[in-house]
């Protein structure tokens, strides 16, 4: 049975590579119920070169909400059922330190994909991904130095901090699949180009954890999968 499926997928790969990246789409919206914690204003007065870049003070980004209870920065990906892909995309993902803030706050990337860390500030940063499954490292990056280039081999959600500026926080979502996306400001997401099949979709939010849903899609349909997280006021 498994052998037949393997054979079939191999055959389809030979016959038509397009079939592997099918035309079905999973889309949906990430929302929350309850009251999320209030974002706190970040006090970066100790680093005047960064503080002056923000005309309005920035706030913590652990939970980013939008209108109609939407939840942004949620990583949505296919955690099971996606066809195996051998190589990571050659294009690097950029993570920028600007105004003593990580931009963007959360990035998703493939295992083995190049990560470029840029220091756009006039102060030194020391980026420290606190990896547990991957190798943990921290690197100092004085102003004006070229971008750092790194890779992660294993799937992991890695909290990232700056060893010099305690308020700087972000996340690397390192995934085995390339079928991933981040929910937008309105909470919406879209996973396109999927072949027919049975998938497990996982949504991950840094404070609220993960949620999974199973979905079966066939042909060119667009399926809607929504996620709702329970927000905590503290």
């Amino acid at each position, binding site marked *: 049975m498994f052998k037949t499926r393997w054979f079939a997928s191999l055959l389809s790969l030979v016959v038509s590579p397009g079939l592997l990246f099918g035309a079905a789409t999973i889309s949906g919206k990430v929302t929350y119920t309850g009251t999320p*914690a*209030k974002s*706190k*204003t*970040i*006090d*970066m*007065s*100790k*680093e005047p070169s960064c503080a002056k870049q923000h005309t309005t*003070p920035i706030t*913590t980004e*652990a939970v980013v909400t939008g209108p109609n209870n939407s939840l942004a920065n949620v990583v949505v990906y296919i955690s099971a059922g996606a066809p195996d892909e051998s190589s990571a995309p050659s294009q690097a993902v950029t993570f920028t330190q600007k105004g003593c803030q990580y931009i963007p706050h959360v990035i998703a990337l493939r295992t083995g994909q190049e990560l470029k860390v840029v220091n756009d500030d006039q*102060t*030194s940063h*020391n980026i420290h991904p606190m990896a547990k499954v991957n190798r943990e490292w921290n690197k*100092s990056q004085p102003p004006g130095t070229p971008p750092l280039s790194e890779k992660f081999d294993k799937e992991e959600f890695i*909290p990232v*901090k700056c*060893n*010099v*500026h*305690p*308020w700087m*926080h972000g996340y690397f979502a390192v995934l085995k699949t390339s079928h991933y996306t981040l929910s937008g400001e309105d909470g919406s997401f879209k996973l396109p180009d999927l072949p027919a099949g049975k998938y497990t979709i996982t949504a991950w939010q*840094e*404070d609220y954890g993960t949620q999974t849903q199973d979905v079966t899609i066939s042909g060119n349909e667009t399926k809607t999968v929504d996620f709702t997280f329970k927000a*905590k*006021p*503290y």
Partner: protein
Amino acid sequence: MGKVFAVIVVLIAFASAVPIITHHWFGTAIELRPPEDISTHGHAIDEQLSETMVEAGLSFLAAQFVLAFFVWKFSNRSANAEIKTFPGGAKWLVIAALALVGTEMLALGVLGQRAWATVYFTPAKPDALQVQAQAGQFAFYFRYPGADGKFGDLHPDKIDEGNSNFFGLDPANDVDSRDDIVTGELAIPANREIHLLMHAKDVGHSFYVRELRIQQDFVPGLDLSVHFTATKVGKYEIVCTQLCGLGHYNMKAYLNVLSQEDFDSWLKQKASEQ
């Protein structure tokens, strides 16, 4: 030749004294004088340091002159001249030297006690403004008790810097901590006593404000405190003066001395940002 040495000793003594004298009395001209004192206790420390400097300086000059005198006097002594010793021999020489230096040290210690006592041996007044300072690699954070006047308890396991919970407060279960105000700068009202409760998150750090004449270490596991009254409105630098790791050079914060009115509105503003 010996007389030349005696002259050189005197010249060295004078040359050494020049920078110290200019530093202390003519500092403004060469921008070396310690910064203006903005505290109520600082003058005692400054006076003590001056006294120490004067006494140590005079002792140094006296010792050099005596040395030069002996070098001059005995430089042409003939090889078979009689050698005189200190009355009573080496033992009494050592005793006399110890007594002389000991008296000097003791005198400085007793006099210095006054300056030290104003900071360390008298408790803060009960109505002093309580502020907690937390030192961690590589930033200072400050906490004001908020409207209820009470600090919430600290739970190190709750520290979550991504959510600006630098102290490890537990607002979900601890009502006292909900109105605590956490800031990255230390703003204080002028002419009011501040009781700074000091707490280290990780390793040893130090709280040093030159203008306040206060330098106190943070020691992990110890609840230390200092109290002071700032008298001059302005912005001053707080620096860590205990090597605490790679980012030590960048571990600083600002002390913002405000009028009571400005302080009240600052605190209100910060409370709304929590």
